């Protein structure tokens, strides 16, 4: 059964909400009452329920299968966390209630901050950024403010970004008014330290480095990089998207990092929700801490206190967003952290790395790796060199996985690998699940190498949709429903 759009199945005079008629009253809208129809369809509750249940059934989900998207960290989302975020004491409090009525909320933010600071070895954290990229912007703003405070605003305007970086890195740097310069990647998949040093100078504000990097490799020169940056008067921003690989094993603060955002929705399992919401708190070194944005929770004489404005003697660079950050995500992340504890968090990182290497070791005889077969961290990167003789693309291979019941891995990222396939199993998969996944990929790989092209070129065959025409969508964008022209 095909499911139409609400605009096709709904009607403007149908509603799934009963609202009592108000007593007669005189409006006070000035002359600004809406006159025209809005054009919104309504559905009764049974119809709405069915519509969205049916839509949901067209989605893949981590609850139903492994979601091996490298760099995205699709792991188990405990339902305890959902229940906790929905406690009225968290879910049903207003950001501008009197402080005396939200003591527990401030306590939660403070407690979460403590965990984040200890895990990262950093002395401060800005809680308000709303997602990873927003956190990057926050970190870069702190760096910019620090540079301005040193009187170097006009000269230090360059941010170094490795080839393998997430696209958000250069975009966030640009948002904050920096120019970016690319740092090449060495033959081992890591930043070329010599090349990096060659780029350093009085015009360089910072480097944005993902660690472990997007090739799934730990930047082993990281301490040297940090030292080089600091010697050159620049800052070290770390993209924390892959922090889940190293929790409890090493601390960014101990490596010389000045700022790092933490994706609560990756490392600490607040669910992705089909694209969000996330949360991106940013830990800051002592050098950057004074520039942290408002609001923040401060330990005061009478307990915790909420600072909502840049106070007179403050060097805070300003505000990232309205209110106090992604409280709903804070609750989920703290629930996750408290459940794991120090021991469980380290074990989770170890299991994530173990599982990625297990996949690597189980596929490396068939599939090629751009930087050779070396231990990886929480994700393993293959390229398409091994597919060359077959004429198939990474996309074909990925789409064929769908017919086997799997969501594909991340493809064509990072850009440093040709036809990249980046696999991140996370710690949430059982060995049986990994074994079946490996067996399926091996079967597909043999099939590709044996020339069974139909299995790939037409894929997927068994999904709610066959391969979709993305070019057509972009060439003639249809971005909303419009009523078909009336006949007649």
């Amino acid at each position, binding site marked *: 059964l095909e499911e139409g*759009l609400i605009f096709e199945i709904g009607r403007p005079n149908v*509603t*799934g*909400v009963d609202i*009592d*008629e*108000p007593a007669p*009253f005189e409006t006070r809208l000035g002359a*600004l*009452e*809406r006159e025209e129809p809005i054009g919104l369809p309504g559905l009764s509750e049974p119809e709405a329920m069915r519509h969205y249940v049916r839509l949901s059934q067209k*989605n893949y*989900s981590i*609850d139903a299968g492994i979601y091996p998207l490298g760099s995205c960290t699709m792991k188990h989302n*405990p339902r305890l966390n959902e229940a906790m*975020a929905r406690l*009225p004491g968290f*879910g049903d*409090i*207003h950001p501008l*209630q009197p402080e*005396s009525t939200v003591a*527990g909320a401030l306590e939660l933010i403070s407690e979460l901050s403590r965990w984040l600071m200890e895990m990262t070895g950093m002395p401060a954290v800005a809680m308000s950024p709303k997602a*990873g990229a*927003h956190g990057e*912007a926050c970190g870069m703003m702190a760096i910019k403010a620090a540079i301005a405070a040193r009187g170097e605003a006009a000269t230090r305007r360059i941010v170094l970004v490795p080839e393998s970086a997430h696209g958000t*890195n250069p975009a966030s740097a640009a948002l904050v*008014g920096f120019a*970016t310069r690319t740092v090449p990647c060495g033959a081992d998949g890591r930043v070329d330290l010599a090349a990096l040093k060659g780029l350093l100078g009085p015009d360089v504000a910072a480097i944005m480095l993902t660690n472990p990097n997007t090739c799934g490799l730990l930047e082993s020169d*990281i*301490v040297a990089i940090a030292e080089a940056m600091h010697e050159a008067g620049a800052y070290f921003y770390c993209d924390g998207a892959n922090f889940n690989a190293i929790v409890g094993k*090493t601390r960014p603060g101990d490596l010389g990092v000045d700022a790092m955002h933490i994706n609560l*929705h990756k490392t600490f399992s607040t669910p992705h929700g*089909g*694209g*969000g*919401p996330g949360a991106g708190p940013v830990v800051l070194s002592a050098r950057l801490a004074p520039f942290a*944005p408002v609001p923040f929770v401060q330990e005061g004489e009478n307990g915790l206190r909420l600072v*909502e404005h840049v106070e007179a003697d403050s060097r805070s660079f300003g*505000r990232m967003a309205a209110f*106090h950050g*992604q409280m709903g995500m804070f609750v989920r992340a703290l629930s996750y*952290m408290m459940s794991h*504890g120090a021991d*469980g968090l*380290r074990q989770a990182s*170890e299991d994530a790395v173990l599982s990625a*290497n297990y996949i690597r070791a189980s596929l490396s005889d068939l599939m090629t790796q751009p930087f050779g077969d070396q*231990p990886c961290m929480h994700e393993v990167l293959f390229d398409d060199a091994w597919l060359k003789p077959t004429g198939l693309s990474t996309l074909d291979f990925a789409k064929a996985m*769908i017919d086997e019941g799997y969501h594909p891995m991340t493809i064509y990222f990072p850009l440093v690998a040709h036809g990249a396939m980046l696999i991140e199993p996370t710690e949430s998969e*059982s*060995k049986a699940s990994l074994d079946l996944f490996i067996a399926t990929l091996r079967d597909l790989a043999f099939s590709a190498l044996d020339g069974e092209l139909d299995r790939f070129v037409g894929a997927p065959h068994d*999904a709610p*949709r066959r*391969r979709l*025409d993305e070019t057509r969508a972009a060439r003639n*964008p*249809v*971005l909303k*429903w419009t009523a078909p022209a009336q006949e007649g």
Partner: protein
Amino acid sequence: MRYLPLNSEDRSEMLARIGVDSIDALFSSIPEASRLSRDLDLPLRRSEMETQRLLSGMAARNTPASSAPFFIGAGAYKHHIPASVDHLIQRSEFLTSYTPYQPEISQGTLQAIFEFQTQVAALTAMDVANASMYDGSTATMEAVLMAHRVTKRRKAVLSGGLHPHYADVVRTVSKMTDNDALSLPPDVFAAEDLAAEIDEETSCVVVQTPDAFGNLRDLSPLAAACKEHGALLIAVFTEAVSLGLVKPPGAMGADIVVGEGQSIGNGLNFGGPYVGLFATRQKYLRQMPGRLCGETVDADGRRGFVLTLSTREQHIKRDKATSSICTNAGLCCLAFTMHLTLLGEAGLRQLARVNHANAVDLAGRFAQIYGVEVLNRSFFNEFTLRVPGPAAEIVEHLAQKGILGGVPASRLWPGEDLDDLMIVASSEINTDEDRAAFASALRGIA
């Protein structure tokens, strides 16, 4: 640990296949001096029951909106959300899916986004809407940056009726990027002359309606002034429900409409996660920030939906992208769409009418209290009160009496001499008894 499926037997077998002796061998690329040789100074794992007990304890130290007569707005609004919405967004297939980069197995999310985009465009009376931003404040900031790109100018004029947090966010980014953000002083009576501030360097004027003091504003004259000077008009709202009753910004000539979508489908959550709405005119489509979902067909010719126009986005365009946003407010926009679908046109209009009626009723009650004054000539479900004495103290007093009664203007605009003003909202959740209790308590205090 209950969330970790591997046991020690599994781990041994896996290490053997990998060909290393210990898990630490896989972490050998961490410089030895930087390896953490101790446990994190944090508690050990806790049972679900214990975690629940601790978090419930924290939650119990807050006063939920539902536990008291509740009249706080100022950018976040409490409305009744149908139980089916929360049930539906918790479906595994929505909650635990990723951004729909593989459209063939993500049609559920994609079709819902397409519905969302259409609904937002209809509500705002604009041509196109994106798949959501983080919240209303960052959407406003993105709108200003977009206006700079479109006009190739660098100055934004911010109304004194703009939510002060929103203004702060715009100013913060402007400062970082050496752009100019001219903020007008708090405009309690919607009396400012914004048109007079527009010059040939002005890329945009940012104005909110209902504004932060609750006033409704006719944007049409301002739209004309903007047009005349080649500037864009950015209209902002923080209360999406108002669009069921008041003239939409698109009908008054706005070029970009941004707003907070929280009040449809989403709870208060102490300020987040919320959902930023972003709509504009067709001609500015390629300058738009954020994700877009578009219609296409599959290999069998069946209609389907995909993410599209990603050449504007960071993962393709990197430092030339129209925004750095990646993760947006997916599940919140889903909740928005579900709630709005349940409401439909008739339901939204009725909901908006009830909100307005309740606010009018409340304002009427306050009008009878000596020393208290409603300052608005027009409003939707929120207005500004002048009270005899510091509003911050009155709000605290009310809280002690079990009434969550509004936001002191001094909390939003500190140091602006607005100490005797408070901003009060009333939605469909307030009963007659709630409003009577509020008026009576205020009479006792004021």
